[in-house]
């Protein structure tokens, strides 16, 4: 910490403290100390304060306590001559600044609840999205956990021009990083510059506009803090672990664009506590020795053309950039990009035309690697705004290829096409829906390029099982219909195979420790009847993943002796879990929610909880933001059960697991299910009824309560009794 930097940080911290104190006093005068304050829809209160101090700020009075504390944390100004050591005090000042920013922003939410737009994308009127809620955290968390998003860049200020801003954003996207934007410089903001340059911003394109003040930068730190709490299972207030977790696992850095003010310095010092270095485009003093961050702490005067790659390097992050021979940018950051209305050049599927995709295995001599055939008209042959039929047939061959892997490879088509900038893909199989934007076509994109993408990425990602790949693209309606018939036959066969698989039939389960990068003691055991709790990996996926990467996060587990058939406990599984959780978990039961249920990382799709009065279980998915009968919202539930901990009475799971015959089987299976959010119930209705029928209750879905019935146990119990829900008369669930 150079002395100049130290002096600036301390000056900034004092200023921010004063501002926050003033805003606080005003708010207290207006609302009183009991007035509740919060960030939207989070179980982590003001997350930095909660994570670091373990202190839940629930009202203005609580904020006052933190303000007092942060005042003590800010040191006096550095003496000109014979100064005292400043690194420690300056880091404290940085932390105090983050606390103050959170209080400042929370009061802003209180005073003006419409200041930020609580959405994933900005609207025409509102650019700034404010704090990310827990739903976004968990949804995006999966990408951080599995590495599709290796980290984030917090961009503060603005670039010298919108073109430079757009170039930087594109490079950050290509490196798969999230970009969290805050603060302004020179009368504009990085986010505004991107809008002006026609770049699509929002959570879906990983370019997230938090706010136009430097205080909004704290939302990025709050996101990181919550990652430690929710995925890392770190207790709030265990500040050291929270910070080290971030240093080791959350690869974030700050790009400071424009004159670094005292306030920016103070915020940067806060970020350094987390191991997030600052890279500036201005000639500010550098702090090169390592220690708090993994490498340098402040590096300055970096040209914009290099600033992204320097940031990645300084943070010590390895980014794998996908090189695909197409004329548009390519990477996970472009997955969520939308193509709408005027921007659409062609559209296929979506109910208007047929679009279909199929991956099949062939003999080695039947596949010519790299061959891409287009059968039918190409983009240049149709007018802008056209709808066309589309069939994509990928034929693969490989010595280690198995037909079981076909659906896995095929399912990749969705994101592989989506990764291309200017392409949008929704759905799968025969309900695929593809849009290609005018921008992509202008850059020279044609339909054969879809084949090039699939060929390149299949080799890259599945090289261990795939030796040859050839792709046929059909736009000729007759050919598409022919393919449809062929595909439907294949789908039916596959479904029957998966449908018929049971845990009893297979001797090998698979582990998934993909998220140990974030949740170090969590181990998923994926069985044929139970997918990983994030919903992203089923048993076949894991099996294929193991074939592809034998030392990777999916390892075969020999079940071994059955220790308890009802609870779902096996000797081999216990031994594996013990070892893979590094001794933290000794045993677990696959089919029980009450007795040693499986650990939960943080990125589960749903969480089930026991309802003792209703004598059943409920489950809630992360898209449902309301209250549930167990007295907690999804966010709070997730917070209390996540982080690789065994929590009897709670278990995280995927949506599909609800329709598994093994869903809380030890407690009576799906017949115990008494409450679901309405939307989720509708989504799973057929499957629930199907399993219900097998168990003698064919209209089970209708007997399950939802939020329209009630959100407390007392409210739903009469409904359950009236509908004669089977759980009501089952033996007591709490034993």
């Amino acid at each position, binding site marked *: *910490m*150079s*002395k100049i930097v*130290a002096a600036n940080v301390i000056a900034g911290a004092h200023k921010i403290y004063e501002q926050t104190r003033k805003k606080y006093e005003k708010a207290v005068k207006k609302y009183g100390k009991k007035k509740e304050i919060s960030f939207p829809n989070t179980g982590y209160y003001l997350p930095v304060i909660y994570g*670091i101090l373990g202190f839940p700020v629930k009202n203005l009075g609580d904020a006052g306590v933190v303000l007092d504390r942060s005042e003590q*944390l800010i040191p006096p100004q*550095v*003496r000109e*001559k*014979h*100064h*005292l*050591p*400043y*690194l*420690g*005090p*300056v*880091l*404290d000042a*940085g*932390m105090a600044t983050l606390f103050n920013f959170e209080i400042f922003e929370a009061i802003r939410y209180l005073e003006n609840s419409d200041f930020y737009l609580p959405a994933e994308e900005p609207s025409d009127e509102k650019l700034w999205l404010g704090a990310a809620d827990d739903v976004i955290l968990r949804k995006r968390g999966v990408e951080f956990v*599995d*590495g599709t998003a*290796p980290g984030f860049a917090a961009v503060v200020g603005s670039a010298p021009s919108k073109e430079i801003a757009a170039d930087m954003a594109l490079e950050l996207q290509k490196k798969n990083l999230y970009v969290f934007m805050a603060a302004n410089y020179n009368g504009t903001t990085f986010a505004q510059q991107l809008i002006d340059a026609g770049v699509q911003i929002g959570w879906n394109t990983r370019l997230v506009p938090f706010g136009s003040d430097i205080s909004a930068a704290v939302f990025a730190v709050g996101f990181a803090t919550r990652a430690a709490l929710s995925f890392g299972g770190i207790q709030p207030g265990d*500040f*050291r672990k929270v*910070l*080290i977790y971030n240093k*080791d*696992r959350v*690869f974030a850095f700050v790009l400071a664009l424009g004159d670094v003010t005292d306030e920016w310095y103070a915020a940067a010092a806060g970020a350094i*506590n987390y191991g997030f270095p600052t890279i500036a485009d201005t000639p500010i003093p550098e*702090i*090169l*020795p*390592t*220690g*708090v961050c993994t*490498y340098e*702490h402040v590096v300055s005067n970096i040209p914009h053309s290099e600033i992204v790659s320097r940031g*990645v*390097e300084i943070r*010590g*992050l*390895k980014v*794998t950039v996908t090189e695909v021979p197409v004329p548009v940018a390519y990477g996970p950051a472009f997955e969520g990009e939308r193509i709408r209305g005027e921007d659409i050049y062609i559209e296929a599927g979506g109910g208007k035309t047929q679009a279909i995709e199929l991956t099949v295995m062939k003999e080695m001599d039947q596949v010519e690697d790299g061959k891409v055939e287009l059968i039918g008209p190409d983009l240049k042959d149709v007018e802008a705004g056209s709808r066309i039929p589309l069939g994509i047939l990928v034929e693969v061959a490989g010595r280690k290829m198995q037909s079981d892997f076909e659906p896995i490879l095929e399912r990749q088509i969705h994101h592989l096409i989506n990764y291309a900038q200017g392409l949008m893909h929704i759905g799968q199989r025969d309900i695929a829906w593809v849009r290609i934007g005018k921008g992509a076509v202008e850059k020279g994109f044609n339909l054969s390029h879809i084949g090039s993408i699939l060929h390149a990425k299949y080799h890259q990602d599945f090289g261990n099982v795939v030796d040859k790949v050839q792709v046929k693209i059909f736009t000729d309606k007759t050919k598409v219909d022919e393919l449809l018939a062929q595909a439907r036959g294949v789908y039916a066969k596959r479904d029957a195979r998966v449908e018929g698989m049971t845990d009893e039939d297979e001797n090998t389960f698979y582990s998934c*420790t*993909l998220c*140990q*990068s*974030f949740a*170090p003691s969590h181990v998923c055991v994926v069985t044929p009847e139970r997918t990983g709790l994030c919903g992203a990996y089923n048993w076949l996926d894991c099996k294929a993943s193991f074939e592809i990467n034998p030392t*990777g*996060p999916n390892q075969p587990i020999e079940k071994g002796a059955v220790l308890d058939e009802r609870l779902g406990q096996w000797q081999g599984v216990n031994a594996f879990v013990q070892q893979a959780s*590094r001794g933290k978990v000794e045993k677990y039961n696959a089919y029980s929610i009450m007795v040693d249920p499986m650990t939960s990382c943080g990125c589960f799709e749903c969480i089930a909880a026991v309802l003792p009065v209703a004598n059943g279980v409920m489950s809630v998915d992360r898209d449902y933001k309301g209250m549930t009968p167990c007295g907690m919202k999804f966010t709070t539930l997730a917070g209390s059960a996540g982080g690789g901990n065994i929590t009897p009475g709670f278990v995280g799971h995927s949506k599909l697991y609800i329709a598994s015959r093994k869903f809380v089987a030890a407690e009576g299976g799906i017949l115990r299910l008494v409450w679901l959010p309405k939307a989720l119930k509708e989504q799973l209705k057929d499957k629930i009824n199907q399993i219900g029928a097998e168990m003698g209750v064919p209209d089970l879905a209708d007997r399950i309560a939802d939020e329209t019935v009630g959100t407390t146990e007392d409210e739903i119990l009469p409904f359950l009794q009236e509908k004669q829900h089977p759980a009501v008369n089952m033996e007591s669930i709490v034993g």
Partner: protein
Amino acid sequence: MATLSREEIEGLKEMVGVFRAIKNLAQGLGGIAGGEAPVAAPAEGLPVVAPPPRKKELGPVDWTQHTIDPVTLEGLKRADQEGYKTTFHRALTMTACPIGKGGTCCKICNMGPCRVLPPKGRDETPEERKKRTGLCGATPETIAARNFARMVAAGTASHSDHGRHVAHTFLHAAKGELPDYQIKDVPKLLALALDFGVETQGREIKDIATEIGEKALAQYGQQDGELTYVKRAPLKRQEIWRKEGVTPIGIDRSVVEVMHMSSMGVNQDMEHIIRLATRCALADGWGGSMIATDLSDILYGTPVPILGKVNLGCFKEDTVNIVVHGHEPSLSEIIVQAVQDPEMVKYAKSKGANGGISLGGICCTSNEILMRHGIPVAGNYLQQEMAVITGAVEAMVVDVQCVMQGLAELAKCYHTQIVTTSPIAQMQGAYKHYAFDEHHALETARAIVKDAIDNFPNRDKNKVALPTEQQDMVVGFSHETINYMLGGMFRASYRPLNDNIINGKVRGLAGIVGCGNARVKHDELHVTLAKELIKNDVLVLTTGCSAIALGKAGLLTPEAAQKYAGAGLAEVCDAVGIPPVLHMGACVDNSRILMAATAVVRDGGLGDDISDIPAVGVAPEWMSEKAVAIGQYFVASGAYVLFGVGFPTINEDVCTNYLFKDIEKVYGGRWDFVEKDPMKMAKRCLAQIDAKRKALGIDKARERVLADMAMRRDLG
């Protein structure tokens, strides 16, 4: 094996001359051989006694050859003008006894003293060597080792007794019996409770402190088991100690044991003598000294960074000037309060001292109150007489250790009152003895201060020569401070230090510690060595009188990093905002360096024991037996320790060889000796540091590691 220097040969001749004189006297021949003036024959019937050794006549001296401190230089010149003698003068007229100084004199029984010096100027034959024993047949190595062990015991006794007094005061303060002492650092108290296994849940601070005080005191008389602090050391180190049987059991016991085993006819195996001396030394470093440090911190406050000043410029013509000198903080802490008492200040002014009262410290007492209160340091060990020579010191309040008796005589030339205060340290010729009792601490302190004020009118203005030199310094680097300053409240750790050692910006660590010694150029070895080391990117930790020397040279300011340090170290100092030399406290606080070294090991990346880290310890100008105890506990803790001036066993090759070489196989640390060339010392230190770096594999530039997801998963 070093050959005798010219000076030593001169000394031997001198001694031989005296022996002859005695012999002649006994034979009634009279006179010193060599045709010199005859000595008067003793009176009839009186026992024959040796006359004092003949002193060299001292002509005009160029004192710039004997100190680098301008204040001391002026003091010496003034002493010459006035005709006063100081330790500097005596050093020039009296050489060190050449038989005793290398460890070859055995005087533990009345058959001796026996001298077992090797032949000069030639190698001895094995037969000769076999014959060279004491009367009892004790071999030179046994004799050297016993002498060494006794120095260790004395040093251990000094620090540990100091620690005992602190613990005793602490216990009674905890019980609320000493109104002038309070528990100041509660967090450290609670941390210490963990070490001592004292329950803290739901208990009052008073009770916790009382139990800690009792347990700390019990360490002294403990007869079984292990000292509590042993558990603080790296695990590997503890295992080595247990395997060697040197894990200290009780503090007092280890001292008594060494005194016993080194007495006539007990332990006569050199390596085993050293082993027991090691156990004793460890009872100092990981026992008595550590207790002194920890309990002083709790009672008087753990040092935090603070601006201080050093040198005799702290005294003013218009103030009553009081020096506190010695080692223990219990009285000086209260004197600090007394001199700030407005009533006292008023009283001083009433006696004509318009500026009030100035307090300055000498030796480690000064380090204690400097680190905790920013009270100026008047000077280090060799400056105690210089303080008197300013003619402006009303009182010099002394307690224990490193207080020269010469002060008493010198003080008589001025109005200065030498006030002794320790129940175990009185001085013939001192002004007064106040038997200091903690129950009446403030009362005693006030009485002493009042005496000094009353003495102000006695000051002879014509004899006053006050220097104005004072150097600023930033001090207060306790182990806790270092931990905090490297990461703040939330990320406190030694990680940044380790990282920068690993990446080579910091080449290594050096503890430069110890006394001043009038046999070498005052402060010069400390300062030149420190400058050379920091120039080579070695971060220096310092304590005791060495710290004062380095402070005077301006090395304890953050600005010194840019001025003297190598680019890598300067960059790190700039990042943290620290001087390139960190003042960690008094000599008893070398325990802080042990804790710092352990913290470095704990933080990882630099091996798993103290012996793995690229660190050295140097006492270039040592003189006290305490230094030997410190050196030995550092060696046994795995450090390379280099001594200057002289080494206690240097004239005995077998024992020296063991301490300098073979002992490394056991502890990973060893002794070394360079007489008085600081550049040569620096070279040896750097070689040692580089060897450790190489062993750790951090001698080469490291590639930047870029982490992918698999690496994150592997973190566990």
